[in-house]
Each structure stands twice: as structure tokens, then as C-alpha cells.
């Protein structure tokens, strides 16, 4: 497999190699980046097909910017986090316009003891719905910090803002989220005392 030529090569070098006509470099880059990108998109959208569409669109954009990629300015992974995040937020916005949050189907199981898996699904769906309700920047910061587990400096780079602004957005985002999900504690498996 031609991947061997590029074993250990940085992402950026693979992109430059693709811009120079080497498709094997792009295939290796796609293989490296797709798992994390799919995870990011799925955790935001809670929809496998939509997540795949978003990642495909983001990767397509990556291949098209390859000839103009400015080396040393941004990491490919940072660029991809940004584009996938923005595309997901766009989709959440459209979803919000077409279906009100109260109209989205709630988890079917209303028995006292639901399985952990069902509870995780219910929470992920509620989170995705709530992110659609939040201001874009807050939703981005919260998802990168708490769903992707990134540090504030990396988030600052992705969002092209200061670390202090990330801290502020994350804190406000959590408060917004707590407020949006108020009243759904029982559904999410939290005691509503």
C-alpha cells in the first residue's frame, strides 16, 4: 500500500503531497482524520447519516483548499474541528427552524428503570436539541470543551479568539444549557426533587 511512503508524515505534509498529485497521501489523511471528525459531528447532531454528510462536506472542502494551503498557519486538525463544528451548528439551526424543541420526539421508554444505553441516547438527544437553542459561539465552545475534551488554548485557536474569551463563552454556555434543560431532569435520569 502506498500509505507506507507517508508513515509518520505530519497531516500538513500529506495535504501538500495531495496538492502535488498524490492521492494516496489524501487517502491516508482521510483515514487518520475521519474517526474523530465523525465522532465530533455525531455528538453534536446525534444523527449518523447527518454526521457522515457533514464530514464528507468538510473533507471535500479540505481537498479543494489543499493547493492554497498556507503551511505553518494552521494545523489541519484545527481547521477540520472548525469546519465540522460550523457545519454542524448550521444544521442544528435549520433543525431548530423546522422543528421546535418541544416537538422533537422524546425517548420512548417511560418505565422507571431504563437501560444505561437508552439513558445515554436520551441525554445525547437532549444535548443536541439544547445546543441548537444556544447562541452559536456558546454551543461551539461548550461542545469543544465538554464533548471533545479539548483544552482552552486549542479551542481558542479553533475559534480564533483569546483563551479568556473561551473561558467566558464556556461558562456562559454551561449556564445557558442548564437553563434550557430545566424541567427535563427526570427525563435525563436526574432526580427532580
Amino acid at each position, binding site marked *: 500500500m502506498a500509505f507506507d511512503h507517508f508513515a509518520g508524515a505530519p497531516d500538513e505534509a500529506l495535504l501538500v*503531497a495531495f496538492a502535488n498529485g*498524490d*492521492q*494516496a*497521501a489524501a487517502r491516508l489523511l482521510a483515514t487518520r482524520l475521519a474517526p474523530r471528525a465523525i465522532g465530533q459531528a455525531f*455528538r453534536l447532531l*446525534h444523527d449518523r447519516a447527518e454526521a457522515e454528510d457533514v464530514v*464528507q462536506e468538510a473533507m471535500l472542502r479540505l481537498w479543494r483548499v489543499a493547493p492554497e494551503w498556507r503551511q505553518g498557519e494552521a494545523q489541519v486538525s484545527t481547521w477540520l474541528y472548525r469546519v465540522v463544528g460550523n457545519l454542524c451548528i448550521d444544521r442544528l439551526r435549520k433543525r431548530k427552524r423546522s422543528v421546535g424543541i418541544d416537538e422533537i420526539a422524546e425517548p420512548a421508554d417511560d418505565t422507571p428503570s431504563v437501560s444505561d444505553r437508552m439513558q445515554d441516547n436520551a441525554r445525547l438527544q437532549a444535548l443536541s436539541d439544547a445546543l441548537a437553542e444556544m447562541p452559536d459561539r456558546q454551543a461551539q465552545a461548550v461542545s469543544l470543551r465538554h464533548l471533545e475534551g479539548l483544552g482552552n488554548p486549542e479551542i481558542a485557536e479553533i475559534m480564533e479568539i483569546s483563551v479568556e474569551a473561551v473561558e467566558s463563552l464556556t461558562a456562559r454556555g454551561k449556564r445557558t444549557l*442548564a437553563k434550557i*434543560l430545566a424541567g427535563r431532569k427526570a427525563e435525563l435520569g436526574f432526580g427532580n426533587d
Partner: protein
Amino acid sequence: MTDKHDHLDDFELDALFASARKADPEPSPDFMARLFGDIDMVSAEVPPADAVRGGLFASIWDAVGGWIGASGLAAATAAGVWVGVVSPSSLDNVTNAFFGDSVSVSLFASEDVLGVDG
């Protein structure tokens, strides 16, 4: 309007995030095939600037010794640029530092360091 008492607390929010982080789907082979198809499509749309196709880049890459060789090549290139831009007088300083303006070599010590002359 919601009562602040109803808002999720930090513990509940953390539990919510932890549940969401468990969702970590793997890309399916079909999906990867779609991505690879896009790579072929974009390659066909825009030929590379130097019209070099396929594995030639990799061949050149091998020729320079891969990443390790390339880093040496980059260092050599940087050195070449330096030599190209410095002025001749600067180079004189360098060559003088190595070779000196003139060199005289005495085969015999001017002083009798071993004391053989008594």
C-alpha cells in the same frame, strides 16, 4: 420562565457530557469509500500545478530519503540560502577564519622546549 432551582447543576451537566462522550462511532467502510471517491473526483477536477500525477511525489520522496532525508535537505537548503545572500566580505571573514591570510609553518621550534641544546 423556569425556576433557577430547576436548572441542571454542575454535577448533572458533567454527567450529561459524560454520557455524550460515550458516543464514539467508527466510520464505516462505505463511508470511507465515499471519502476516497471524493479524493479521486477532486484530483480529476484540478490537476496539480506541476502536472505531476500519481506516485511521482512518493518516488521523489523516497529518493531524498523520506522525512529524515527531507529535514537534512531543508537544512542544506537553508545553508545554501545563507551562502547566497551573505556579502563577499563576510565570506572573506569566514575563509580567513579557516585558512588565515597567510600561513607560516616552522618545522623547528624557535625555543628549545626540550632543552636538548643544554
